[in-house]
């Protein structure tokens, strides 16, 4: 009985959203087969991006709002490959290879900055995302086509420099998803993408057991203790962010190859926001996040994404309202998760203080 209650309490967020979606699906009137196809597609599209958030949580750095840096690196790789007309699997691989040094560099920068802002990593990472977005715009909107030569005039704005705001990734569109084609009862399955996601999951599981992974967990638990044990705390934190940025970079490439279009100036912003909301809806918190959280979160978040506009339209006659509701929920769930985390932390500190005052007092 007690165990059941604890199970319910631990999964309250997941259950709440599952109930919300269960109510919204009949309202939206979406056919089940369509929903299934959409969810399976979007699972392949988004899972790697969300997976990239796990390591910084383990290292005690909270939700890595700086993951948009990795997404930008991935987009730069895709822009270059599209410009050079390199297509298919070689094109996608090359995009990832070109983006890798950029992602590592940005990840290192992000980790170093966050080391100067211990205790407020999340807000700093968030602002860093905006700041680097400015640099990204400087490169993509001004340098490309002028300082950095562009071969394909169709990618360049009519004024002669700067990349267009929408790029069709026809050359690499769904090359991963369709590498191993599979159809089961009218449902298309991106088998290879799933294999890739499974490999990434295995990597995360394996990584946790390595020396570096153990160090990260130790740093996440208590920086002072880890430092006393001889773990290089700052370096470990930087590596956690570098790995996360790199995974986010590949995640964004997987995401965009499925979508087939790149919104040059806002694809990356959405990536960060949606991934973090998905992870939290999956039941993760600022201090604990696991692979099941990722998978459950992606499924629930995207189900909500798909059904809320139509459900809103059928309920009150306004699709716009459903869309606003969805965004409200995305931001709201992040706010609630952060509040719960801070709340618990504060309660813990108060308890510790009470315990220090001696037995009999407080508690």
């Amino acid at each position: 009985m007690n165990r059941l209650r604890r199970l319910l309490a631990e999964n309250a967020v997941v259950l709440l959203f599952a109930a919300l979606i269960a109510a919204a699906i009949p309202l939206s009137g979406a056919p089940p087969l369509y929903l299934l196809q959409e969810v399976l597609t979007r699972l392949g599209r988004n899972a790697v991006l969300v997976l990239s958030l796990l390591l910084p949580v383990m290292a005690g750095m909270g939700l890595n709002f700086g993951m948009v840096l990795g997404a930008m690196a991935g987009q730069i790789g895709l822009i270059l490959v599209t410009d050079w007309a390199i297509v298919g699997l070689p094109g996608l691989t090359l995009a990832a290879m070109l983006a890798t040094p950029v992602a590592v560099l940005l990840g290192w920068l992000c980790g170093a900055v966050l080391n100067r802002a211990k205790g407020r990593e999340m807000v700093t990472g968030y602002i860093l995302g905006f700041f680097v977005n400015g640099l990204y715009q400087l490169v993509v909107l001004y340098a490309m086509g002028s300082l950095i030569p562009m071969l394909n005039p169709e990618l360049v704005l009519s004024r002669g420099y700067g990349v267009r705001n929408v790029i069709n990734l026809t050359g690499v569109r769904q090359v991963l998803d369709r590498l191993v084609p599979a159809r089961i009862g009218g449902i298309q399955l991106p088998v290879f993408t799933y294999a890739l996601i499974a490999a990434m999951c295995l990597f995360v599981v394996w990584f946790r057991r390595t020396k570096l992974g153990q160090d990260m967990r130790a740093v996440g638990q208590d920086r002072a203790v880890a430092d006393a044990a001889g773990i290089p705390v700052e370096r470990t934190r930087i590596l956690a962010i570098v790995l996360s940025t790199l995974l986010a970079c590949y995640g964004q490439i997987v995401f965009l190859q499925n979508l087939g279009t790149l919104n040059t100036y806002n694809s990356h912003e959405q990536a960060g926001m949606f991934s973090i909301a998905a992870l939290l809806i999956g039941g993760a918190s600022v201090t604990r996040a696991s692979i099941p959280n990722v998978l459950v979160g992606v499924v629930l978040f995207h189900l909500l994404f798909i059904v809320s506009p139509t459900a809103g339209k059928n309920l009150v006659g306004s699709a716009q309202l459903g869309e606003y509701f969805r965004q409200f929920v995305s931001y709201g769930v992040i706010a609630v998760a952060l509040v719960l985390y801070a709340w618990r932390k504060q309660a813990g500190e108060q308890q510790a203080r009470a315990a220090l005052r001696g037995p009999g007092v407080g508690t």
Partner: protein
Amino acid sequence: MSGARRLLAEFGLPRVIIALFLLGLFAAAPLVGVSLAASLSDTVVRFGMNGILVLALVPMIQSGCGLNFGLPLGVLAGLLGATLSIEIGLTGPGGFAAAAGISLGFAALFGLGYGVLLNRVKGGEMMIATYVGFASVMFMCMAWLVLPYRSPTMIWGFGGEGLRTTISVEGFWLRVLDDFLSVRIGEEFRFPTGLLLAFGAAAALVWGFFRLRVGTAMTAAGQNPVYARAAGVDVDRMRTLSVVLSTMLGALGILAFQQSFGFIQLYQGPFYMAFPAVAAILIGGASVSRASLVHVLVGTFLFQGILTMTPSVINSVVKADMSDVVRVIVSNGMILYALTRRPAEGR
């Protein structure tokens, strides 16, 4: 020499660079055919428009709640006041006063709830404020769609639902502050006396507040909560009060902005309102834990000066409008600088 160096250290290198940059822009303006008088006039008007919004950050920084990224909450209160005043059909100074009155009521209410929430999440205020702000903006998006407003100037015509995304305040209280006692100097320079008077009055009120006993108690609560508690200050109450004050100033700030700008921007309009204000006060020299009126005045002038001058000057120099990117880099770079300063340097 050492005096100059100390002054530089106190003023902070980033501020010196930004001030020199702005000075350079003003110096370059006549050379590239941009009218200096018009630029200055623009800068002064925008200084007045944004001043109160920046001022709104001071109480929360002083009480130890950090940078108020939840400013959109105050802005939403201001939007409610503005739209309700128009709905009633009040025009002129009376309409503006009614908007301000209604806004303050909502702002006090919002601020109270927001303040109580922030008291329970000490240490995580800034990120939570950001997302509480975002979520409330989205919540109000739904509200703008369904609230039973009737005024034909504000709702969509046939086939639309809810309020318009931008509502003109022309015919209601367009420029009621700007044009009050406004002075024209020469062809292109207009001095918005009323706007600056309003800003000055708000600033004076805040200045006065922090000279009162309650104000010093608030500062003490922010600087050293343990000591303040020992001295008998109710830290949580001071923090809540600062949040209420900040939210109310935010509401007034957006009204002052709108009457000059000419439009009420609903829906996603308030979304990123906090960021320019935060950047401005940090450029002025504030840190995450300490802010003064000088920081507000200097920062707003520098930041708005750069926003006014970069499009006109840079545009004619490099034949490209880079103002947006410059704004993004300068404002977020500034916030980043403040967040990564070690506490010892921040004091």
